[in-house]
């Protein structure tokens, strides 16, 4: 691109977001055409360009109004906080109302618009203006005869503005089949911007598009913009792309068991989390825990509530032991409650943006997300979310969205429109078993971490959320009292088994005792026999000895020698 070699000088508008889309503002020293239908904000855009130029960039400006008087204009923009009278008094702004009333004018021959040139030139020179607005130039066509001359003069005027070196905005009404009624876009070749005000699903949204920007790259999307008490703000999120840095830091979910399910550490900082489930499954409670944990770490949290009022959320969460009110008091938690139907998607996005920029939170909660979805606008919701998530990610803001799914539909399908954008997706379900509704929680996906594949029972108690193991019975997952029954049945079975083992052990003991007794008895018997036998042997041996002694004494009595003893021995 040529702009890289020789960058086109640009004049910053000071309009929030617009300078990002156009990479610096409007082409300096050249005219820009802003066109759109009535009431789409052309005049305000142009006026903010001048006011910001005068107050922020030291570039005085001239506003030539063809449709409103200076007084009307001053009043109209006072609501945006612009004090034109003061700027005029300080010679930073010049207002000139050019009144054209056709019925006063008879064309009597050749003419030109030198009068306009002179007035403009005079106004520019009187304050040394660098910026000029002509609003709306087409009024000249409505007020003056002879379009042929007017077209030629218009071309000359734009040429003349370029030669003057002023950065100019020319506004034009949207026409049929072309950008402006009088084809002004033919004359302004440098930069063309369209403003639009569209109705979708009963809400109106302002949009801005850079149709053409010669010599410069620019975002080409429809950018929503907002007019409020601080002026215009354009939402240029899509221009951010996917080049944001990611954090490895992990932050707690506020529930220890859930942290454990998410790889023992919780969510990634700056990730996007979706909590989806049917009505009453505890989505807001989960969000409340997360908010409370973040505040406890001293981080700021922005809570966007679309269906409940802040006080109602606080009351409900205090019932489960979460005191959010004192985080609000400490300025760590901020609630923004609006109805989704209050404004269009883009308006919501802009509001969220502005709130985030002002509060600079480290976490944002949107509860619930899908109240935006009405009819067939899921594509737009996705576009909005993409931009929102991109925006939050570049700021390392963790985003938690809750999503209400309706019964009967597949949960995965319902949220498919947005699920691809989500890093961690928790699914809350109500399980109907044994005449009870019980809640379960499972981690559907969680990018970049080893997460649990287990379903947990999810209990909302007076002390907050508790996660319990669930039991798989013959009829599926068991929760609630069925789980309790299962638990007690299992317990009694375990008891019975233990008792059986004990019984068997006793039996064994007894048998061993019997065996031991038998062994003892046998040994005693044996020992008795042995003793008896030994005694007999002993007695026999004593008897033999006795016998020999007797024989010896007999022999000595017979005086017989020992040689004679033997035959005598055989002869008792």
């Amino acid at each position, binding site marked *: 691109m040529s702009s890289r070699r020789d960058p086109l000088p640009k004049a910053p508008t000071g309009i929030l977001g617009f300078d990002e889309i156009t990479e610096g503002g409007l082409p300096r020293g050249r005219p820009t055409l802003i066109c759109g239908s009535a009431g789409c904000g052309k005049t305000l855009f142009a006026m903010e360009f001048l006011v910001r130029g005068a107050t922020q960039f030291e570039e005085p400006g001239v506003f030539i109004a063809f449709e409103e008087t200076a007084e009307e204009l001053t009043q109209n923009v006072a609501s945006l906080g612009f004090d034109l009278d003061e700027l005029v008094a300080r010679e930073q702004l010049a207002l000139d109302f050019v009144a054209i009333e056709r019925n006063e004018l008879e064309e009597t*021959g050749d003419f030109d618009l030198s009068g306009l040139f002179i007035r403009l030139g005079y106004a520019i020179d009187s304050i040394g203006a660098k910026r000029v607005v002509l609003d709306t130039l087409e009024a000249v066509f409505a007020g003056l005869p002879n379009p042929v001359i007017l077209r030629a003069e218009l071309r000359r005027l734009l040429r003349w503005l370029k030669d003057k070196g002023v950065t100019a905005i020319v506004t034009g009404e949207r026409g049929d089949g072309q950008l402006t009624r009088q084809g002004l876009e033919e004359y302004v070749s440098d930069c063309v911007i369209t403003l639009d005000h569209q109705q979708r699903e009963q809400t109106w949204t302002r949009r801005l598009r850079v149709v053409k920007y010669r010599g410069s790259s620019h975002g080409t999307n429809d950018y929503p913009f907002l007019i409020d008490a601080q002026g215009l703000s354009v939402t240029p999120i899509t221009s951010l792309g996917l080049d944001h840095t990611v954090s490895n830091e992990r932050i707690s979910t506020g529930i220890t068991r859930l942290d454990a399910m998410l790889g023992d550490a919780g969510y990634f900082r700056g990730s996007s989390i979706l909590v989806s489930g049917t009505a009453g499954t505890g989505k807001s409670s989960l969000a409340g825990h997360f908010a409370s944990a973040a505040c406890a770490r001293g981080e700021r949290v922005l809570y966007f509530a679309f269906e409940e009022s802040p006080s109602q959320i606080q009351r409900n969460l205090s019932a489960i032991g979460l005191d959010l009110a004192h985080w609000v008091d400490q300025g760590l938690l901020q609630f923004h409650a609006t109805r989704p139907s209050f404004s269009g998607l883009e308006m919501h996005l802009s509001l969220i943006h502005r709130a985030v920029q002002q509060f600079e939170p480290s976490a944002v909660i949107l509860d619930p997300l899908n109240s935006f979805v009405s009819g067939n606008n899921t594509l737009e919701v996705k576009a909005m979310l993409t931009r929102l998530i991109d925006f939050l990610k570049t700021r390392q803001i963790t985003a938690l969205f809750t999503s209400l799914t309706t019964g009967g539909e597949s949960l995965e399908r319902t949220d498919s429109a947005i699920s691809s954008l989500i890093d961690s997706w928790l699914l809350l379900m109500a399980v109907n078993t044994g005449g009870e509704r019980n809640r379960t929680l499972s981690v559907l996906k969680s990018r970049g971490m080893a997460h649990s594949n287990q379903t947990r029972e999810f209990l909302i108690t007076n002390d907050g959320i508790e996660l319990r193991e669930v039991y798989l019975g013959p009829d599926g997952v068991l929760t609630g009292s069925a789980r309790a029954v299962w638990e007690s049945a299992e317990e009694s079975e375990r008891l019975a088994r233990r008792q059986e083992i004990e019984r068997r052990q006793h039996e064994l003991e007894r048998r061993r005792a019997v065996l031991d007794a038998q062994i003892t008895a046998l040994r005693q018997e044996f020992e008795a026999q042995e003793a008896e036998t030994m005694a007999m042997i002993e007695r026999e041996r004593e008897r033999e000895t006795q016998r020999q002694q007797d024989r010896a004494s007999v022999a000595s009595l017979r005086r017989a020698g020992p040689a004679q003893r033997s035959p005598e021995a055989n002869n008792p």
Partner: protein
Amino acid sequence: MNQPDQDDNDAPGRVPSNHDRDGQDLTGGETWTLRLYVAGQTPKSLSAFANLQALCEKHLAGRYRIEVIDLLEQPQLAQGDQILAIPTVVRRLPLPIRKIIGDLSDVERALVGLDLRPSPAEKRD
């Protein structure tokens, strides 16, 4: 609108019927004040001035005054009379103020614009 006979709902800017004596003196004795805005001595502004003077001589002899304002010299005056096109003639007197643009080469239109031309019905008389 296209019924010239009905004077009562005619344009308010019309001077009432004091302009029918001889087709020359169309107005009362009032002196006309005409202001011609130009931007420098361009051929257009010179011819505009010449045309205006000829027209006045013919219809308002002796009862007119022409002020020429060159906006190149006095640009601040452009705002007061809401001047956009050049040349512009502003009839300041008699009231109401009327404006015509162009170099006055189209005399018919100039007369209508300045309300100097009798209506066709009056011409027939």
